């Protein structure tokens, strides 16, 4: 027994000795002293190049490394000067003149000039690069034709450097959200000289994005990229607004699991992280934790119908199922993350658009419609499968909906969960009957949502098609008048709500922990983080 006791004591002493047996300063405390922000990023990044990446983890880092012609006020969402200090727009809304500020510099000290945008967008539209954001540049005159190869000369595309500081952009049609697009990572300028040092201009994934080679124009510049460990950036001394940047650096840790990220937060290893686990939201909210932040987001969670297969080729069936869903109860009792019940696809829009049409909750009407479709009280309704990707939160929603339909309409559905890539493949090939989906708007405009369901649209994936709808979306795209555009969108949305190729369930709400030592944090409808406004203050205990 003596041996055993001695062993326990020795082991405990060793652990204490190794750990110092006292509470060490956490990374957050050290970060507060040194103005280094520690961020839990949700995944390892594929790359830093905005032309070859599309994910949120990459975006969270890119916005620190690059800056577009304009930026955006997080609260008002109004465009703010970025690389350009001023701009003018022609009366028809098609021609923009940007003035590049005198002090615009790359992180190696090179001057940033108008031609840099021309060269970057030229690269973005090179087909061999396989840029997934290329279609974003199609708002430029002749950009699509150049990308498709029908125009070979890039000078025909609507972007020209009139001088070192004057950039002229000609759009294919009036695009009221164009200034917002300029703040999108697909539109950031890239240092082409550096790209060319490491390969051909249209070559993907060369070594230009390694920390030792990287040149950018954002408030920060890349200093380390160790896969699965950390991406570190430090303040860029050449940034035009460097004197207002208080953070000395940011360290992004790839933490794939929300649970692990929340634990890292509690242990003081990160100031903030991407997403609070659903089951922890109530705890932080009820305890009024000062770190807890909840904010509306420009995104919708919905279910897709495969409108090409029975029984969902009948709009009455789709409507019946949609009308039978109590979405208020769903957000209150199931999702519980302060989400807003959604009765139409587009979320309420701070720029003035809120859809008039809705898909109401009306059980009596739902029963009637189902009966008209030939399934009174659900009799004879075929067995259908609801497909979702494997995640507990999707499962909870699916189970609740399964129960609602059973209770109100008397129909039975089966639930099927699939691993992410398998799920995506089945959704893409329309190998499903009913499946879960979601969409986060790329810009604050109904267009980003309503574009989804044009005939044969890449993200339609319902098989639904309506010529009038397509025409309305087209008309909206070519209209110079915002009120008129919104009217076209209202009409289109009414068609969508009448024909119900999808069932909107709720509008996303962001739930996040941001350490109280982080000052200057602003919630953003698209969850864009603005690091240059942040600073850290030690917390007194």
């Amino acid at each position, binding site marked *: 027994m003596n041996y055993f006791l001695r062993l326990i004591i020795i082991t405990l002493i060793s652990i204490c000795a190794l*750990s110092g047996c006292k509470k060490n300063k956490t990374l957050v405390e050290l970060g507060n002293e040194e103005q280094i922000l520690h961020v839990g990023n949700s995944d390892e990044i594929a790359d830093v190049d905005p032309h070859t990446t599309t994910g949120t983890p990459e975006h969270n880092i890119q916005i620190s490394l690059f800056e577009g012609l304009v930026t955006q006020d997080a609260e008002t969402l109004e465009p703010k000067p970025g690389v350009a200090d001023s701009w003018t727009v022609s009366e028809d809304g098609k021609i923009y003149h940007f003035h590049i500020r005198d002090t615009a510099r790359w992180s190696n000290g090179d001057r940033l000039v108008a031609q840099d945008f021309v060269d970057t967008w030229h690269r973005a539209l090179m087909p061999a690069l396989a840029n*997934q954001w290329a279609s974003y540049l199609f708002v430029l005159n002749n950009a699509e034709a150049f990308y498709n190869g029908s125009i070979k000369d890039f000078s025909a595309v609507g972007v020209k450097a009139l001088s070192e500081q004057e950039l002229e952009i000609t759009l294919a049609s009036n695009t009221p959200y164009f200034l917002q697009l300029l703040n999108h990572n697909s539109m950031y300028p890239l240092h082409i000289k550096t790209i060319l040092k490491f390969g051909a201009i249209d070559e993907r994934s060369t070594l230009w994005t390694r920390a030792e080679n990287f040149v950018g124009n954002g408030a920060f510049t890349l200093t380390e990229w160790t896969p699965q460990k950390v991406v570190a950036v430090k303040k860029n001394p050449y940034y035009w607004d460097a004197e207002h940047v208080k953070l000395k650096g940011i360290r992004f840790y790839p933490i794939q699991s929300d649970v692990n990220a929340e634990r890292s937060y509690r242990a003081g290893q990160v100031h903030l992280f991407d997403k609070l686990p659903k089951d922890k939201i109530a705890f932080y909210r009820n305890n009024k934790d000062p770190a807890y932040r909840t904010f509306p987001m420009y995104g919708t969670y919905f279910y897709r119908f495969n409108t090409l297969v029975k029984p969902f080729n009948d709009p009455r069936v789709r409507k019946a199922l949609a009308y039978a869903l109590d979405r208020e109860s769903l957000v209150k009792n199931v999702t519980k993350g302060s989400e807003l019940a959604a009765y139409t696809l587009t979320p309420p829009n701070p720029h003035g658009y809120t859809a008039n049409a809705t898909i109401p909750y009306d059980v009596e009407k739902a029963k009637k419609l189902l009966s008209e479709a030939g399934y009174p009280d659900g009799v004879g309704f075929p067995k259908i499968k609801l497909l979702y990707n494997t995640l507990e939160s999707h499962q909870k929603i699916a189970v609740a909906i399964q129960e609602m339909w059973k209770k109100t309409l008397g129909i039975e559905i089966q639930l099927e969960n699939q691993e992410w*890539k398998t799920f995506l493949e089945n959704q893409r090939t329309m190998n499903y009957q009913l499946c879960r989906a979601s969409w986060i708007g790329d810009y604050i405009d109904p267009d980003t949502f309503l574009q989804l369901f044009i005939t044969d649209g890449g993200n339609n994936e319902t098989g639904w098609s309506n010529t009038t709808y397509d025409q309305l979306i087209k008309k909206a795209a070519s209209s110079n008048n915002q009120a008129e555009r919104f009217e076209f969108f209202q009409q289109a949305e009414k068609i969508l709500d009448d024909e119900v190729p999808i069932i909107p369930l709720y509008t996303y709400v962001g739930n996040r922990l941001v350490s109280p030592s982080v000052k200057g944090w602003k919630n953003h409808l698209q969850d864009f983080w603005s690091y240059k406004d942040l600073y850290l203050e030690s917390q007194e205990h």
Partner: protein
Amino acid sequence: MYLFIIRRILQSIPVLLLVTAVTFFMVHAAPGGPFSQERNVPPEVIKRLNQRYHLDEPMWQQFFSYVGNLLKGDFGPSFKYPSHTVNDLIVAGFPATFELAFYATIFAVLIGLIAGVIASLKPNTIQDYIPMSSAMLGICLPSFVLGPLLLLVFGIWLQWLPVAGWGQIPGDKILPSITLGASYAAYIARISRGGMLEVLSQDYIRTARAKGLSTARIVFVHALRGGITPVISFLGPAIAGLLAGSFVVETIFQIPGLGRFYVQAAFNRDYTMIMGCTIFFAFLIVVFNLLSDVILVWLNPRLRQQVGGGH
């Protein structure tokens, strides 16, 4: 002895080839591709990406060109992390995995042997029951339970040790090593107890006791050498298992090891990365099994006779 080693190496070549072929065709048969995303990727972009990575070629052609590159030691570019080659990522991730496995092995052997020896000295008494019940608990408690439990106690409540990272904050290697090593420590405790009990009942130990030697001398000088033989044969596959099976611990503790790349690769359909990791881990398993066999043969003269090298 040399012939035995050469024979074993030759035997492992078809094993590795089989692993390569089976994994290659299985990963390509999995639904969904490396470039599919929630936001639909335009078909022309998919076409160009497939061309770039030769995924548009017939499967047999892809396989043979893969094996051709493999023989040159080239695992190809990662599909998910395209500016890195799989070789780069293995080189980047393996040191952390290896270090973790190394510390876990030390922990497992140290704790396992001590517990096993203590238990064997007084079998069927409290001195036996406590370490052996703890060992049973260690075997039953999977790392995804033990890890968060240790994190909660030492990371969150006591705040003695960091909850994540590897080599970033002092002490961040302790909890992952314990978590990974715990179940192996438990196995070693049970195996060494068995081995020691057998040895301690031998006549020469009784003689040593009769001569009045101290317990410590009997254990460390006479009994331990024989008692740990089963532990050595367990260690070969165990180390391979520690290396290849560390992904759960790597995920819980955010360790930038190869295991995390491996699991993520499967979710991302990063074909080349899955292949690279599988072949690499298969190679390690083969090597460690070989090493453990060689050590056993070297330690055991009877086995040495059997494999044909009696000198």
